[in-house]
Structure formats: structure tokens, C-alpha cells
């Protein structure tokens, strides 16, 4: 339970930077506006999950929610954690207390998820306000967005423990950018040749995009459980690995 102390610590720190915290809501909002005002008109209608043609903005909004969950979690678990690990020496201090590495990992990911939940709620409310939701299943959109955040935060945190300098963050961008652009976020999978489709179907963000899109548009089937399980397993594996790595780095 002592992971909660870490969350409390971050909450206290962010009290001095609450505007940074709050302004995170604007980023997906800008994207939604840009799509609604501009791209939506250019693209017109696209085939939705059930094959029916739907307005582009209804297609792309859940994709943007998935992307913002991933980006938020990756940002929190890479840049911020690297800073705490290497410069602020936060974990050195924490591990001098009864707290253990696994609890540090859990606390960090818990914090990332708390943040992600607030953004996901805000985003979903904006989607409702702009009339982009077609189904009551949308109540599951926030938990799914948090699940996406969990998977990427855990993996990102594990990766961070291997990093040596700020230059290594180019590799984080290199990993997240193709996921952001190619996971059927901005256009349906059918645009790709078959080979690329198969590759994309195995990537983690794609699972999140499909989950959220099917939920907001109300095309729900049991197959979605597999996608959720994929993300959950990824997150749990990352959680386990990052706890071990923090212990290895700091408890020598």
C-alpha cells in the first residue's frame, strides 16, 4: 500500500504546477477541433467497424483518445521517470525507506494512470459534447483508455531503466511515432496492403484503437476481450520487469 505515498508525493509536487497538469486536456482538444473543422471535410465518410460509412470525425475521435492515452503514459513513464532516476535521485531517497522497488514501480504507474484517467474523462466529455458518440458502451471508454495507459506506462518505464542519456529518447519517439501514425488511427486498416495489415494487427496501440472505436460506435463483440487481455498482459509484464530493473539499478 505504500505505493500510495509516491502518488501523494507527486500530487503534492504537481500542486505547484497544476496548470501544466490541467493544460494537458487541450492537446487532444486541438486535435479534435482540427479534424472537425478541416480534415473531416476533406475526407468525408469512411467505412466504420461494421463496414457502414460514418463521418470521419466519428471515426478518428476514438483513435485520438487511444493515442493521447498512449502518449500521456509514455511521456510520464519515460521523460519524467528518467529525470527522477538520474537527476532528482528520487528513488535513491525512497529506497532508503521501507518502500521496495516493486512498490515504486506500482506507485509510478499508479500516478500515470491517475493522470491518464483525468485526461480520458475530459476527452470523453468533449466527444459527448461534440456528438461523436453512438453508443452507451462509451462508459467503458475511460477504463479502456486507462488500460492503454497502463500497458504503455509499464513498458515505457521498463525501457527507461535501460536509458543512459537524453539522446536515447530519440528511440522512444522512434517507437511511439509509427504506432501513433499507423495504428489505424487516422484511416481504416483497409488502406494498407494485406502484409502491412497483418503486421499492424499485432501492434499494441492498434488493439486500443479498435477497442475504443468499437465501444464509442457501439459495434461490440467478444473479440474485444482478447484485445483487452493483450494490453493487460503487456502492462503486467512491464510492471514486473520495471520493478526488477529499478531494484537492480539502485539496490546494489
Amino acid at each position, binding site marked *: 500500500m505504500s505505493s500510495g505515498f509516491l502518488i501523494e508525493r507527486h500530487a503534492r509536487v504537481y500542486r505547484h504546477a497544476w496548470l501544466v497538469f490541467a493544460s494537458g486536456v487541450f492537446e487532444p482538444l486541438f486535435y479534435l477541433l482540427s479534424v472537425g473543422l478541416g480534415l473531416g471535410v476533406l475526407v468525408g465518410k469512411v467505412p466504420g467497424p461494421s463496414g457502414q460509412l460514418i463521418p470521419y470525425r466519428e471515426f478518428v475521435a476514438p483513435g485520438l483518445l487511444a493515442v493521447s492515452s498512449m502518449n500521456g503514459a509514455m511521456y510520464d513513464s519515460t521523460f519524467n521517470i528518467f529525470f527522477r532516476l538520474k537527476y532528482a535521485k528520487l528513488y535513491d531517497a525512497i529506497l532508503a525507506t521501507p518502500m521496495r522497488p516493486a512498490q515504486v514501480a506500482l506507485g509510478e504507474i499508479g500516478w500515470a494512470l491517475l493522470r491518464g484517467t483525468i485526461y480520458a474523462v475530459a476527452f470523453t466529455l468533449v466527444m459527448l459534447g461534440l456528438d461523436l458518440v453512438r453508443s452507451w458502451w462509451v462508459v467503458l471508454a475511460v477504463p479502456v483508455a486507462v488500460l492503454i495507459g497502463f500497458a504503455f506506462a509499464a513498458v515505457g518505464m521498463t525501457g527507461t531503466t535501460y536509458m543512459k542519456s537524453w539522446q536515447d529518447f530519440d528511440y522512444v*519517439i522512434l517507437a511511439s511515432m509509427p504506432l501513433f501514425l499507423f495504428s489505424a488511427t487516422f484511416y481504416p486498416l483497409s*488502406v494498407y496492403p494485406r502484409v502491412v495489415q497483418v503486421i499492424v494487427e499485432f501492434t499494441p496501440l492498434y488493439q486500443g484503437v479498435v477497442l475504443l472505436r468499437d465501444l464509442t460506435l457501439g459495434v461490440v463483440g467478444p473479440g474485444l476481450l482478447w484485445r483487452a487481455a493483450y494490453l493487460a498482459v503487456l502492462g503486467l509484464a512491464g510492471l514486473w520487469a520495471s520493478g526488477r530493473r529499478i531494484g537492480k539499478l539502485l539496490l546494489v
Partner: protein
Amino acid sequence: MVLAALARGDDPPEPPDHGGATRPPVPPGGLSFRAFQCWLTVYRRIWRSSVWSSVLGPLFYLGAMGFGLGSLVDKHGTASLGGVSYLAFVAPAILAVSAMNTAMGEASYPVFGSVKWNKIYIGAQASPLRPADIFRGHLMFMTMRIAMNAAVVTVFMCAFGAARSPWVVLAWPAAVLTGFAFAAPIAAWAVMVTKENSFAYLFRFGMMPLMLFSGTFFPLSQLPGWLRPLAYATPLWHGVALCRALSLGRADLPGALGHVAYLAALASAGIWAGARTYRRRLYV
């Protein structure tokens, strides 16, 4: 006396002459070139990691936006784009945006970190370099990075058939000018910044809306009327419009000169301000 002069913010006196023989001659471009060489030395150690994001980043964007999204847009009709394919429409915008992004990346945290974290500026300030030299040297390095990244995008544009005119060779310097017009004022501001939170706002409320609403991914004619003048006033729009006109071979001289004048004015203001803010910050 020297300290008093420094405290007033005057230019420091010439460094004492050590006999001439042992001192290397000042290279052309003055001392700022030495500050530039310092950044080159750093870059030689770290270029490998950035080469991936500089090469693959634009490739991914061109692929996803130009080809992926483009296939949907082209199917729906491209009358509002002036009849060209979405790839040809969006590629020059990606060129200008990537120049802006490189500029913002190089002029924000690296400048701030040179004062606060690794203190490169503080070290340089103890040498005969004046703050203005430190500023101009770093700016040269930023320009080099912008030019390198913009060259990569331009080559991809040509390779993918996104460029419609040989004038595209001028889109490269146009993009460099766009990046420079961001780099100089942002560096001038970044050196005065005391909390790194400020950069989060720059990226969130500066870079992001500029990238989305400057006629990049869709023509400005689709924005509501009251928003359009605002978009026309942004520097990125001028960069995008200039690069696009050149790449599509639709540039007219007065229009192009107008964009260049706007960007050059912004860059000059940045250079003017930077020499002052660097002095204020580094001579305390």
C-alpha cells in the same frame, strides 16, 4: 574596472594579448564561430541517435499523411486543395512543420539546459566569448540542424513525386528560413526562462496549434472566417504557404517576397533580442 563594465552589461574589453604566437587567430565569423564549433564537437558525439528520428520521422509522416490519409482524401475529391493530390498538398507543409519542430526542439531545452543543467553557456562565458557570440554560435548550430532535417524532407518529397516543380529546390532554403524565424526568438526567450514548465506551454499552446491550424493538413479556407486572420498572422502559415507555392510551382514574386520579408523580420527581431537577453542572463 572590468567587473564594473561587465556589471553594467557593456561589451567586455578585448582579452589581453599573450604575444600572438600562442593564440590561434580568430576565425572568419568572429568568436561566434568558436561557439558553433563547440556545438559541433558535442554533435559529433551524439548524432547517431538523432539521425534515426530525423530520417524516419518525415518518412513516417509523409507515408501516413500523404499516402494513407491521402488515399481517402483523393477519393473524396481534391477541389478545395486546388486540384492537386493530397500528397502534393501536404508534403511541403510537413517540410515547413518539421523545420519548425527542429527549431523549437533545438532552441528550447538545449538553451535552457546550457544555463541550468550542463552549464555549457556558463563555461563559455568564462572564456573570451561574449554572450552575443555564444548566442550566435548556438544559433548557427540550430540552423545547421534545421537545414539538415529540411534537406532530408526535401529529398523524400522529390523521391515520392510529391514535388510538382523544379522550384522545390528553393523550398529547402524557405524551410530553413522558417525554422530560423522560430529558432532565434525562442532561443532569445529560452535563455531567460527560469522554470522548465514554460516549455510545456510553448509546445502545447504554441507548436501544437500552429502545426494543426496553419493551413498544414487542410486549407485555411475551411477555417471559420473569424479564425482565418489569426492563422494568416502566424509565422508557420507564411512558411507553409511559401514552401507549398514553390513545391507546386505556383509561386508569384510579390507573394513570395511578402512571406520572406515576414519571416526575415521575425528572425531579425530574434537576433536583436537574443544578443540582449543573453547578456542580461549571462552577465550577472
